């Protein structure tokens, strides 16, 4: 606290303070926001997004730590394993920035808590983020985009990008500030009053309804077989549609869902689909 006064008076070093700690300005947080766009650029199997996380933190760390040893320790700290949904990583980055600032000014602050908080947040945030961005928002964007693009409309890809990225970038920006402002208390509060659970639950409902709808709309499997001959012949497909439209696509979905549960690899299933389809077409069952 005294540091601020000493700055105003032009006194160079305050006796009590560890470091002359500059305020983290709006501009610094904006740099954190922009650098967060590269979160998956150097993604690797060993420590995943850690290098990018460090890269994003650099402007803040540089401002906070003037001593070489302190800066080195902070850089090494953030090079530890990290991974979460990239679109909302600014939430954790903001919290890290708040904690680093605390660490730079408070001698009693436990610097290891910075990584503990990061580690405890990346799981829950990835849970919400993955289901919302990949499971919900991307699906809506894909649904709108592909339905237009399939007709050759150039608005398809454009709307696809807008539907996904307008909410994405707005949220990424807002979360930088929220993360910093609320520091560590925010997510704990969310979890305590049940808002976190509601968000996940609602996102899952919306996502699954869209997946269900798209499954009915976009999976196709027709049977050209006929029972009987001549004019009295009944198409098997009509019988199936009479039981329930989309019965075969639903069955195909079910089989694949089950196989995935048996931990059959996606590539294997893909090859399986091709083989079954070709055999089916050769035997005249599918068309």
């Amino acid at each position: 606290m005294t540091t601020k006064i000493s700055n105003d008076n032009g006194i160079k070093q305050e006796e009590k303070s560890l470091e002359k700690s500059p305020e983290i300005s709006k501009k610094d947080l904006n740099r954190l926001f922009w650098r967060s766009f590269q979160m998956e650029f150097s993604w690797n199997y060993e420590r995943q997004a850690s290098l990018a996380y460090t890269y994003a933190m650099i402007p803040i760390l540089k401002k906070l730590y003037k001593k070489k040893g302190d800066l080195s320790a902070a850089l090494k700290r953030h090079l530890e394993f990290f991974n979460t949904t990239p679109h909302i990583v600014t939430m954790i980055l903001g919290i890290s920035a708040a904690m680093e600032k605390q660490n730079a000014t408070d001698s009693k602050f436990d610097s290891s808590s910075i990584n503990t908080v990061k580690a405890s947040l990346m799981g829950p945030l990835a849970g919400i983020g993955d289901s919302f961005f990949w499971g919900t928002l991307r699906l809506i964007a894909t649904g709108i985009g592909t339905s237009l693009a399939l007709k050759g409309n150039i608005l398809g890809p454009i709307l696809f990008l807008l539907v996904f990225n307008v909410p994405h970038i707005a949220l990424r920006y807002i979360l930088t500030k929220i993360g910093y402002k609320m520091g560590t208390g925010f997510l704990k509060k969310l979890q305590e009053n049940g808002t976190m659970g509601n968000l996940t639950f609602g996102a899952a409902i919306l996502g699954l309804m869209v997946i269900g709808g798209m499954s009915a709309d976009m999976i196709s499997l027709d049977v050209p077989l006929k029972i009987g001959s001549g004019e009295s012949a009944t198409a098997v497909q009509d019988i199936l549609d009479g039981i329930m439209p989309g019965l075969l696509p639903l069955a195909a979905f079910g089989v694949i869902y089950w196989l995935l549960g048996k931990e059959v690899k996606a590539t294997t299933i893909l090859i399986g689909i091709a083989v079954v389809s070709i055999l089916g077409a050769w035997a005249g069952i599918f068309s």
Partner: protein
Amino acid sequence: MITALLLGLIAFVAQSEYALGTSLISRPIVTGMLTGLVMGDVKTGLIMGATLELAFIGAFSVGAAIPPNVVVGGVLGTAFAISSGAGAETALLLGLPIATLALIFENLYMGVVLPIVLHKADKYAEEANIRGITIMHVLGGLGMSTMIGAIVFISYFAGSDAIKNVLDAIPSPVQTGLEVATGLIPALGFAMLARLLINKQVAPYFFLGFLIVAYLKVPVTGIALLGAIVAVVMVNVMQTQKLATEKGGVMDDDDEDF
């Protein structure tokens, strides 16, 4: 040669979405349009891109699982489909194997090359060398984009003529079969997504969405809007139930007053 270079450039830019906020510019629906632009047939590019988008819909990274490379699949699939004049099933047939091949290179890069880069960054952190860390991060990422761009360039440069011969040699049941497969492959994507989201509590909503579309033919945008309403309603219902159980008989008391 110029086309191959331009396609390589598209792939380079698309792969760089990871430096651009994971903004989905790598998706086939986007790269298909750009490929169509380069190949001089935007409309087909759009249609192929959208078809491949649906085929690759489950291909996105959750946690540490990396799917076949959608950039390579999308760009080459669309390009070969346009240059050979064949349909979407061709785009799939040619796009998927090369995308899987590219995945091997991608895995190698993320499993071997980037960890080496990372260890170099560790050394720079020891010296508090900020510039060094920045260079490692940027070079590491650019290397991946360059590699993917090169794979597309080489494949297109070498393959476009050979592809036609291969296509002519394919017997017709196989071609019909691949058309059937084109209709089925989205099921894989949807199932992968469902695996991610489903638990006992929310499983019925998949069937709700499926049945509404199967019987009523509601477009997907309609389902998304309906889904949003259902989500809000269900969250509210859940909360009211929670309040009711927490507060015990309070709600019954209110009823008695009427």
